[in-house]
């Protein structure tokens, strides 16, 4: 290029830069002004299926009519991704589901409005669930429901192996011996998901976990965790436990439904799945076997998050209060089978669903998801390692988890 053109190109570039930079960086409001008048709430949910979408839309419509506002419920295809993009954009939805595993990231980024103090009966919700949504000492949002992992046993296959009710395992050793008997009868004993969201239950039963109770210290590399992973690795190597993909299925529920295995460890959601896709399977639900340090399981919960940028703060809080009211929670439970997050509803829930005793019992000793920001890649890396647990050294795996967790918690 000749000099003159080069000069022109540079001038062009500079102009573009200046234009670009000046177009940005202007007018970003940190505290959005509240709009008065009827609210137009945008609600983004991560639905578990049509049943949930319908139920939530119905409840939202009822609220809208009663209060004279409008509420639009949109089911997300990929909630995490859509929320990520929405937060970076200038117009995120007003109300949305927040998964406990991602809560810390959003809270730390300042995307959530801490409205816990505006809920008068917040104490009615299970303490462990509230804890999952408390950041920096503040309760940010109210849990909408929860699930725990329990043990499902296929009664037909159980009887086929000559096992009875007495053989239902309540400890790790009993689990192993029951599995061995199943294997002897040519039945795949256990199918368990290849992720921390299932195997982690065993870590809890051994008394360990990925982070400390307050979520500030990394405890991945503990002897308790090692014990749990070694136990699980032993089961896999001896052919007593398989991963869903090893038997051509996508998750434990599918394998269990296709009767490819006698035992699986899944949460409440398996009820709906089995009912819809595999109605002929006869099964029982029991609490997970206790480990060296006692009973343990994992809980999963989602809360109603309100955007820090919403212009309808009061109405949004009112909406959430309506959706988490006792009557509404029972309606949701009936519609799509989750457990209500209000402790006071426990008895009523059990009256309607006596088979879920095992699930709800888990609430007492369940470990919630890791509540620390920037842990997502660490945890998915841990999952990648667990996927190859059969051929990996558990100690190395946990050391790596420890290192990564420390780095994430520090930065």
């Amino acid at each position, binding site marked *: 290029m000749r000099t003159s053109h080069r000069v022109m190109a540079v001038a062009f570039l500079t102009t573009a830069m200046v234009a670009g930079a000046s177009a940005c960086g202007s007018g970003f409001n940190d505290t959005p002004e509240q709009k008065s008048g009827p609210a137009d709430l945008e609600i983004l949910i991560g639905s578990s299926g049509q049943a949930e979408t319908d139920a939530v839309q119905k409840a939202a419509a009822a609220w809208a009519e009663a209060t004279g506002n409008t509420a639009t419920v949109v089911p997300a295809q990929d909630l995490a991704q859509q929320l*990520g993009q929405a937060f970076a954009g200038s117009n995120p939805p007003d109300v949305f589901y927040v998964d406990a595993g991602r809560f810390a990231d959003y809270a730390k980024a300042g995307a959530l409005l801490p409205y816990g103090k505006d809920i008068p009966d917040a104490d009615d919700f299970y303490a462990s669930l509230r804890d999952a949504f408390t950041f920096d000492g503040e309760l940010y949002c109210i849990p909408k429901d929860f699930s725990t992992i329990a043990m499902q046993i296929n009664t037909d296959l159980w009887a086929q192996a000559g096992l009875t009710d007495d053989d239902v395992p309540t400890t790790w050793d009993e689990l192993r011996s029951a599995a061995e008997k199943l294997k002897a009868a040519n039945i795949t004993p256990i199918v368990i998901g290849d992720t921390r969201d299932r195997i982690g239950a065993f870590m809890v039963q051994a008394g360990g976990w990925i982070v400390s109770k307050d979520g500030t210290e990394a405890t991945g590399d503990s002897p308790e965790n090692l014990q749990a992973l070694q136990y699980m690795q032993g089961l896999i190597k001896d052919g007593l436990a398989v991963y869903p993909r090893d038997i*051509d299925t996508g998750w434990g529920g599918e394998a269990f439904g296709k009767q490819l295995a006698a035992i699986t460890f899944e949460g409440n959601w398996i009820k709906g799945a089995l009912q819809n896709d595999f109605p002929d399977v006869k099964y029982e639900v029991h609490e997970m076997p206790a480990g060296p340090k006692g009973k343990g399981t994992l809980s999963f919960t989602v809360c109603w998050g309100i955007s820090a940028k919403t212009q309808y703060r009061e109405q949004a809080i009112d909406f959430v209060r309506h959706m988490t009211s006792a009557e509404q929670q029972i309606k949701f439970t009936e519609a799509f089978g989750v457990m209500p997050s209000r402790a006071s509803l426990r008895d009523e829930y059990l009256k309607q669903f006596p088979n879920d005793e095992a699930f709800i019992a888990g609430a007492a000793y369940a470990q919630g998801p890791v509540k620390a920001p920037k842990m997502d890649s660490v945890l998915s890396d841990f999952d990648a390692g667990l996927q190859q647990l059969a051929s990996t050294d558990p100690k190395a795996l946990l050391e790596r988890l420890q290192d990564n967790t420390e780095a994430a918690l520090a930065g």
Partner: protein
Amino acid sequence: MVLTSEAPPRRPVSDAAPPRRRRRRSGLQRPERVAGWLFVAPVVVLLTVFLLVPILMALWVSFTSWNGQGSPFRAGVPVSGGENYARLFIEDGLTRQDFMTSIRNNLYYVLTVVPLQTVLALALALAVNQRLLRAKSFFRTAFYFPSITSSVAISVVFLFLFANSGAINGVLAWFGIDGPNWFSDPRGVLHIILNAIGLVDITNPPALLTDNELLGLPWWQWLSGPSVAMCSIICLVVWTTSGTFMLMFLAALQNIPVQLEEASLIDGASRWQYVRKVVLPMLKPTMFLVITLGLIGTWQVFDQVYVMSKGNPAKTTLTPAYLSFRTAFLDLNFGSGAAIAFVLFAIIIGMTLLQRWVMRDRDEVRRPRWFRRVRSV
């Protein structure tokens, strides 16, 4: 040149114009100048705003640790300097490991796809270019058709084909082979081969390789080869892109005069010798073009990863393009995501420069029209 059927003039007309002068004549030239600027203005504005400015903005963001809330240009956004880049290359940690894993995956992908698609495209072009081949147009269409389809739609089809009990495994079953669980098998192909010939034990790899690292990734991981899951994506891409490159080879083959073939037959050469000694050397420029285009294209694989596997299983289908996207939009770490995008940019620019250098002026066989066009790019 996309034209009517007459041969276009040899040199572009503007080259034949008189040399430019610094002084401009007024009068006749003025409306032309104004018109010129007006005509290009919309395109220039659009390309500047949506291609140039974004790059500059992203460059800025890659030097910050912006968390995705609000504008990255307001005051108070934490500037972290070269920290994001350091985390990718120098600092020991998960970021570097993930990044190196994605580089490794893409590297094997490139090293597998480029040779495969080049060879396949060449073979198909040679086969289609036979004189007196009937249905030549049909075959050419058949091979080229996958190239024009939507990558997302094709990914859906291949998800079905490579399912555990899908068509591919069904075909393999005819030959008595038990097909793997394509999308959930994270084992590297090299590992499998080495295991099969007994050189290493895949469940107990040699400590020498697992304990020593290069840039944060153990040597054992560097030597894994593409994973089984990645192989299904490789099949998809080779299937899709070979057609385009076949057309380029065909165009080059068409420019080889028939007299050459007849002359070599007169000399007594067999068909294969003709191909090897006459055709292939004449195709060298095209081959370089195809290879370098392949190099540029394969470093950008994203759609298929997003639709089919999202990096799984065990991060063996993670590529830098997808990692950049995921880091920004899922982990809300836009600084790191932008940094990864720029490193990828640098890699691809490197490949582009390589292409231009390779395709520079050569005093060889007269180059066909289309090739000269590309060279002037």
